[in-house]
């Protein structure tokens, strides 16, 4: 008995030992990926040790939420920095207690970091997030109340810290640098506001709420004053339309936010919709847009300012596309000149203006004429650079 069971135990042990070690080896030795291995000393091409200059500037501190810093690494941000100082934008994001964790948090982790001042407006105060409590209830019928109160709050508490005041939703993605590029050709004293222009209901049109809109300080002052004097009142809960009506009353003009090739910058839908989808002919959108709708790649400026209906994962995707992923060495087709407000080379003179609302044919004809002459046209900002593909 004893010897047999002993031998049996031995075999069992042997089997167990073999299989255990095999599994162990398989995990640690056999199947391995290569990524994130420590640096090997010499490489085939004999490259010297690199200074990881890019790595140092890369660090983005997500904890410093409202602090401006470089998101684009390894490059020269002087123009963007100058615009940051000269064209100060206060961003306020329309949100609510239920959306803080699901939406607003991602807005805070991405684009609002580029605002000079960023505020999150809710019905209730939340010191942890933080959000400003507007003293309203939640719900679609409260949107205009929240808007009115939010703008009042912004002017009262932060009026001196900004020149322009942007409203956005918690599913809007905004590229502040491109907003500043458009705004830099105007002053905060102009009674003007910018956004995606719709035409119905208001003679001068109004700006889509979801795509975001931005008021000059003068526009904001007039707006707040109008509510004080009751020149404007809470007429309807449809926030963007009601605000547009008030703007018309108080003499604030709707600006043209399109780029110098007449391409839209504020977008009421997501990038995939604008770039790839065809809006059905019966879609309300066709009757709403003030400027001609372009579908496909020319729907959207290279210097897009906003997209709407952006879910959190698309928020990060847009951040990656805008501030991170690029084609090394690529010379962009669209070469916008700096706005007048900036100092330094490439400053345009006062006679140059942003292209008027004449459509793109004029621009195309000019570009064609320039091509025939074989000359780049420096006088017009934003012309397509004529490329001679090097063979």
């Amino acid at each position: 008995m004893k010897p047999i069971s002993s031998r049996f135990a031995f075999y069992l042990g042997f089997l167990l030992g073999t299989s255990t070690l095999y599994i162990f080896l398989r995990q640690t030795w056999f199947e391995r990926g290569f990524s994130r291995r420590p640096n090997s000393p010499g490489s085939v091409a004999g490259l010297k040790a690199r200074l990881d200059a890019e790595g140092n500037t890369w660090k983005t501190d997500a904890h410093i939420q409202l602090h401006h810093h470089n998101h684009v690494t390894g490059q020269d941000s002087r123009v963007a920095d100058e615009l940051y100082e000269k064209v100060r934008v206060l961003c306020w994001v329309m949100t609510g207690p239920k959306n803080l964790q699901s939406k607003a948090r991602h807005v805070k982790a991405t684009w609002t970091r580029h605002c000079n001042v960023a505020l999150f407006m809710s019905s209730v105060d939340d010191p942890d997030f933080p959000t400003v409590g507007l003293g309203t209830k939640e719900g679609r019928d409260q949107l205009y109340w929240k808007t009115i109160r939010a703008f009042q709050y912004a002017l009262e508490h932060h009026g001196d810290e900004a020149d322009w005041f942007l409203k956005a939703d918690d599913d809007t993605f905004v590229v502040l640098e491109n907003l500043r590029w458009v705004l830099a050709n105007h002053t905060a004293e102009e009674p003007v506001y910018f956004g995606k222009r719709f035409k119905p209901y208001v003679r001068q049109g109004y700006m889509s709420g979801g795509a975001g809109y931005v008021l000059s300080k003068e526009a904001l002052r007039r707006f707040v004053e109008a509510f004080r004097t009751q020149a404007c009142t809470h007429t309807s809960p449809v926030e963007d339309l009601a605000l547009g009506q008030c703007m018309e009353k108080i003499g604030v003009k709707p600006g043209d936010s399109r780029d110098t090739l007449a391409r839209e910058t504020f977008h009421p839908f997501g990038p995939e919709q604008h770039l790839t989808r065809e809006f059905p002919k019966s879609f309300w959108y066709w009757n709403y847009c003030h400027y001609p709708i372009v579908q496909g790649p020319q729907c959207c400026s290279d210097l897009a300012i906003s997209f709407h209906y952006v879910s959190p994962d698309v928020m990060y995707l847009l951040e990656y596309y805008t501030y991170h992923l690029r084609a090394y060495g690529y010379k962009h087709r669209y070469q916008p000149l700096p706005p007048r407000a900036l100092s330094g080379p490439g400053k345009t003179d006062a006679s140059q203006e942003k292209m008027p609302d004449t459509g793109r044919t004029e621009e195309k004809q000019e570009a064609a004429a320039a091509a025939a002459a074989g000359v780049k046209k420096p006088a017009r900002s934003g012309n397509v650079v004529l490329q001679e593909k090097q063979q």
Partner: protein
Amino acid sequence: MMSEGSSFMKGMVLGGLFCLVVSLIGSYTLGIQSNMELHLHHHLKAPSKEELQQLSEAQKLELSQRVRVYCVIMVQPKILQYWVAAKDTWSKHCDTAVFYTSESAKVLEAVNLEESDEWVRLRKALSHAHENSGELQWFLVVRPTTFAIVENLKYLVVDKDPSQPFYIGHALKSGELEYVEYQSGIVLSREALRRLVEVFKDEDRCPEQGRSLWKLSEEKQLAVCLKYTGVYAENGEDSQGKGLFNSKTVSTLISDSMTRNLPDVVEGCCSDMAITFSGMTPNQMHVMMYGVYRLRPFGHTFHDSLIFLPPEGSDND
């Protein structure tokens, strides 16, 4: 009882040792090169800014023109929309882009390989590419749903000598075999391709039909053949060690990063100089085209050391 227990223990120890010895012997016979040499081939990084900045303007321009890529894009008629998407988007940035199909279809402008077997198709495509590539020295081989940023590939290889064998991509290891993952794109230098086409003729080392009981995937077969010619897989990564070749879509990678609850989702996701993403739908490719070649924040200038111009006759980049 005691003797059983001790027998058991002895058995376990001996079993473990046995396994260890067998695997050591096994790895010895399979491995052809020593570990030392393998380590030299593991990580392949793009040149640093400093290195490239040392070049003169004329040299930078010359380099930009000299590094040219032949794109081998595998397609199939039943997924025609990917051929359309690739043609409309990223492949315009290849110096030469050739589509290779398994069977012909009227609308599909592609080299018809008339072959259903993936491995044989790959062989034929690579042979064709080798014969028809003229002066081009770098080859990128991708599957239909892959989006490649050719400029970033050029940046990765600009300081590598294409008359040396290079086999680059997302490198994986299976047993002792190191191979480049097909789905995330395979890069071959001219010399590597030349050697490969040579070894294709060797029916013993690089057969058209696999000899083993189970069929090796094409990517592994490729690695085996290349290994016989002394060419080893290298992992393409950026200066931070992040992989440049991705077998997943950018959305998937972003979602993965989000679930990991990192403080910076985007930094935890992907490289700024990524070369490939795969599994992309046609619409996603159009959005990526816009995101890579157009969408940007005003006021940031990159003083890159290479310059690549936009292709003619295109408006989505």
